[in-house]
């Protein structure tokens, strides 16, 4: 029963798996994001305090949740790469880093755009904001280290160490609003018990969350495919694939 899972760890079968999965994941994510944004930005009721400005949560919250999720995923993939020396885990880890960094940057930028009218400042040096900024630099560190060394495997494992050590920052970001007296509001969506958000606003938010996750997964799959092709360029299966795509080589 688990053989398909084990087979997935081999580069050629992962490549084919990703190739088949990616268009569906990406297409579904695109459609859901269109639905979620239209619902959230046009049809959801305005907030009684913030008016229409609250609608930035349909970008901000999914990006923030995914930035933490991708970092955690990257650290887990990094741990797998270090413990079991899995080639595929290295590739997936390095594929996650740029996607996570972009989502972290989107989180910070949308938060700043919202902060100016609501808090009166683009930026405050507050626990959650600072920890999210540190997350951006951790992603950057993994990206830089992932390509710093000529031997790609050594480079990937070095980056994996930074990803694993940096995981201490993830709970700090998530729980900073509970631990410190932060200006950032507490968790309203992803908290235990009854969510502190009305259903009319919550459903489009959940749709956006799912859509962003699917689009991020699509980007990670495609990036992993490209990395696999670059890394395995000399192997038989890549040559066969190229021959199949471009016709026989002269």
């Amino acid at each position, binding site marked *: 029963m688990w053989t398909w899972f084990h087979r997935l760890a081999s580069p050629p079968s992962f490549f084919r798996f990703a190739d088949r999965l990616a268009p569906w994941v990406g297409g579904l994510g695109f459609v859901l994001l269109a639905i979620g944004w239209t619902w959230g930005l046009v049809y959801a009721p305005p907030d009684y305090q913030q008016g229409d400005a609250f609608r930035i949560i349909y970008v901000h919250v999914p990006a923030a949740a995914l930035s933490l999720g991708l970092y955690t995923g990257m650290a887990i993939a990094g741990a797998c790469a270090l413990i079991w020396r899995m080639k595929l885990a290295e590739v997936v880890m390095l594929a996650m880093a740029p996607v996570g960094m972009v989502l972290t940057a989107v989180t910070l930028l949308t938060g700043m755009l919202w902060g100016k009218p609501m808090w009166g400042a683009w930026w405050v040096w507050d626990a959650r904001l600072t920890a999210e900024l540190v997350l951006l630099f951790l992603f950057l*560190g993994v990206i830089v280290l992932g390509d*710093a*060394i000529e031997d790609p495997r050594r480079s990937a494992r*070095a980056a994996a160490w930074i990803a694993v050590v940096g995981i201490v920052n993830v709970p700090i970001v998530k729980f900073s609003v509970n631990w410190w007296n932060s200006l950032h509001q507490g968790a309203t969506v992803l908290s235990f018990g009854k969510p502190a958000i009305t259903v009319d606003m919550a459903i489009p938010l959940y749709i956006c969350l799912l859509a962003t996750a699917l689009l991020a997964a699509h980007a990670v799959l495609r990036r992993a495919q490209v990395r696999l092709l670059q890394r395995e360029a000399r192997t038989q299966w890549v040559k066969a694939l190229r021959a199949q795509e471009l016709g026989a080589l002269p």
Partner: protein
Amino acid sequence: MKSLRGIFRREVDLLRMQVLDAVLPLAFYLLVVMLFAFGTRANDPALAGLSVSILWVGAVLSALLPLPRLFASEFEDGTLEQWCLASTPLVVIVAIKLFAHWCLNGLALAVMAVPLAVLLGLEGAGLGYLALGLMMGTAILTLLGGLSACLLVGIPRAASVLPLLVLPLMAPVVIFGSGAVRAWQLGADPAAPLYFLGSLFALSATALPWACASALRNAYD
């Protein structure tokens, strides 16, 4: 045990041949603090308010200077390879090496911070909390920087990449370290931030030497 003392002695002897290497970070520290003071109006009382932050950032930057080349000479002359093959566990060797580096570098910076703090108008027990915090802070920096140096061993770009890897992780250390002195300035108990700093030190001292050893082995396969 004898081999451990030997490694420690080797570090001390190497530094004695290159006294300038030990003095340069201290001179750099003085220069950073001096430029901050020049950047403000002469005798600006606001400088005293920022002094803790300046002293902490100055110490972190100065301690960062020698880190990219921490394992460079061992890598170049093949000592590192011998360490990987030695009967003494690599973890122990690396831990001793980092400890020796901290004794000769971090400790000196923590001591150096006291007269600099007096220049910036800090006085009383705050000086003690500053030095105590900096001792733990430079130790954590040595461990984190040691891991980065192990990861980057033999790479020409190490000097520019290492700060990028280490400085984000130093954020909590700087927050709690300067927080201890500020708590004392405000009349609060500085024990809580110092305990937090201590727990960060305990965590990094127990986990990071193993990571360093594994990263060094990574350089050779």
